[in-house]
């Protein structure tokens, strides 16, 4: 497999604001991501995982280092921690807006909505549907652009277990249909093991990579509780 992204963060800090001292959140981080891999970033909250995603997304440019994306005109999608839908646009419009005007893929918006189980809600406004459904819209919006790199920042938090489980299954299905490279942030160790092909653990302040493990579970094994538990113990054993 070829390398798609090379992330080098020599130093990322935040200036002192409102009584909080200046901090360095990330330091000496060097991460290469293979094309087609599903990389899960885990670590204690506040350790800089979201900051790292924002750097990769190009939203945060105030850092020392570089992000190299090896693709001609790389396209990016980002599923944020909150769905970040436009409340004044319908579900279908929210998905369609991720594509440029006149893009041929606009014709596939209804199919995409059907695939994520939102065919009925296409003309609903986001505030009138449940959080689980809003997160489905965010997934549809991300996959419609057929991104080279998909960034996901705890996309299934604050959902009840069955809903989160449904969405995980949906993500695996969408990913299977159109494989892409994923950088996924989560706290949830079980979720990490079920989804990842590789788990990168961040810890410390400033955060560094403390473990980098390849997950060797076959598709079927990811549904087996014992195998998942065993893998979880292996990945998260203290180094």
């Amino acid at each position, binding site marked *: 497999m070829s390398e798609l992204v090379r992330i080098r963060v020599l130093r990322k800090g935040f200036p002192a604001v409102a009584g909080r001292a200046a901090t360095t959140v990330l330091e000496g981080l060097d991460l290469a991501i293979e094309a087609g891999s599903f990389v899960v970033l885990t670590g204690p909250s506040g350790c800089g995982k979201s900051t790292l995603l924002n750097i990769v997304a190009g*939203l945060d440019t105030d850092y020392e280092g570089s992000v190299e994306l090896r693709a001609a005109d790389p396209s*990016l999608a980002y599923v*944020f921690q*909150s769905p970040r839908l*436009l*409340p004044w*646009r319908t579900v279908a419009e929210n998905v369609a*807006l991720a594509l440029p005007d006149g893009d041929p893929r606009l014709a596939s918006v209804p199919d995409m909505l059907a695939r994520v189980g939102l065919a009925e809600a296409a003309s609903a406004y986001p*505030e009138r549907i449940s959080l689980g459904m809003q997160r489905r819209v965010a997934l549809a919006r991300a996959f419609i652009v057929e991104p080279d790199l998909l960034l996901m920042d705890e996309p299934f938090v604050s959902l009840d277990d069955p809903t989160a489980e449904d969405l995980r299954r949906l993500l695996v299905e969408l990913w299977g249909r159109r494989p892409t490279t994923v950088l996924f942030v989560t706290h949830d160790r079980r979720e990490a093991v079920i989804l990842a092909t590789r788990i990168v653990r961040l810890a410390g302040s400033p955060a560094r990579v403390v473990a980098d493990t390849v997950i060797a579970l076959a598709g079927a094994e990811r549904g087996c509780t014992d195998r998942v538990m065993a893998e979880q113990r292996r990945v998260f054993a203290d180094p």
Partner: protein
Amino acid sequence: MALATRATTAQGAIGIPRLVWTLGSLAALVVVWAIVASLVSSRLFPGPAEVCHTFLREVETGSLMRHVGATLARVVVSFVLAMLIGSAIGLALGRVKSADRFFDSWLIFFLNLPALVVIILCYVWFGLTELAAITAVAINKIPNVAVTVREGARSLSRDLAEMASVYRFGWWRTLRHVTLPQLAPFFAAAARSGLALVWKIVLVVELLGRSTGVGHQLNVAFQLFDVAMILAYAITFILVVQAIEIGLLQPIDAKVNRWRR
């Protein structure tokens, strides 16, 4: 249409539509007015019939249309100008912190400048011209619009801006789908209070230095102590402004707010 939907959604406790309530209460006001006028029985307190008579006379001679039209044209031009310039200033102040810090005291100065002072100064500096009249009204309204829109610009969501940037909306689609919808309630608030303020100031401007418009007619009627004419023009203009509110502003409001829960 807006009236119809409001009437059906806003049923009173006793099941009578709101429209009926409004019409009934206005009819009662006319009745009270007629009774008081007949008791006072003075040329200086004409009843509804007399005012209606004057109204019809003014319609027949065509002077009502001419003067109301002139006033309305001034209202529209100065309102649009004030909204455009005020919004631009408000957006700039809301987005650029240093500009806000510097110009904040200017804004407070202009907010507290009495309308009459602005009108007199405009007439003194630019002469008794149409340009002076429109400028005076616009200057009175611009600070209000700027303050309201500034609040909106300050509260723009960073989350949505980031989303638009990741999905490559570009500036035009960001403006149309992300920024303007967030500002819409602030524009609506500025427009609502703007219309009410602007038409009252236009009347003063006309009274002081124009030879057409409702304000000018009120001045003429004042000099003749023609109270029926004053009331005929005042009520006509109230009705026109209400029609704009119900026929234009409320439907726009309903349309931009249809996504709310």
